[in-house]
């Protein structure tokens, strides 16, 4: 039996890498992938807690996270493709229209 703190340590590392990837990359596609990484790290932590405390809530929440991630990726990629169609470039530095 692996102690849950090991899983939590891996989850913390993956979440940090995901956050750093969101900040450090310029391609919105890779930013989305880093976001998925962070979501998956949260899933791993939820399941570690679910195993540790013997409750079923973590598993139900993980299913919700998966569904929300699927919806988010579908809408986000459609937005990225729409932006690319208008601008013919793909860098988050160009998308400053809504910044004050």
């Amino acid at each position, binding site marked *: 039996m692996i102690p849950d703190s090991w899983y939590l340590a891996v989850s913390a590392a993956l979440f940090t890498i995901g956050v750093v990837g969101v900040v450090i990359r310029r391609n919105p596609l890779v930013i989305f992938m880093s976001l998925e990484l962070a979501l998956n790290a949260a899933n791993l932590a939820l399941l570690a807690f679910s*195993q540790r405390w013997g409750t079923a809530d973590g598993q139900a929440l993980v299913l919700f996270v998966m569904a929300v991630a699927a919806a988010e990726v579908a809408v986000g990629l459609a937005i990225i493709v729409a932006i690319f169609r208008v601008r013919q470039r793909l860098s988050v530095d160009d998308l400053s229209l809504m910044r004050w």
Partner: protein
Amino acid sequence: MAVAFALIALVAVGSAVGLVAKRNPIHAALFLVVNLGSLAAFYLMMGFQFLAFAQIIVYAGAIMVLFVFAIMVLIPGKEETGPDPRRPWRLLALPLGAALLLELGLIVAARRAAPAPAARPPGFEASMTALFTDYLFPFELTSVLLLAAMVGVLVLARRRA
């Protein structure tokens, strides 16, 4: 068991670093597939068989196909080749990320002292019962969310007249 855990953890963290470090988005996508697979292996080790296979089917099957499709449509490989005009600001992410990792590590280390309860692994049936009783309203909301996402994607993908 511990050796297997260390190996899978190494693969998971290594593929995550590769995702962030590689320039070409298709390499990032392949690294993400490896990472999702290693997380599925973790779920199997914890005894959550259904979620492990749902992870593979939903993430590696559906979401990654979307990503690869988008990379194919968007002519990648040209975006991050030039010099980064905001490089000093972006590199600020590394020390800040290290600080975040330190904080999370401290939280995990503090939790280790907590007394362990009687461990009884929750079964698949229990989680599904919770899904359809305690979480019935969020479950229905998820279906609305998926429908809204589908309609939104259709609207976004429609060719402008």
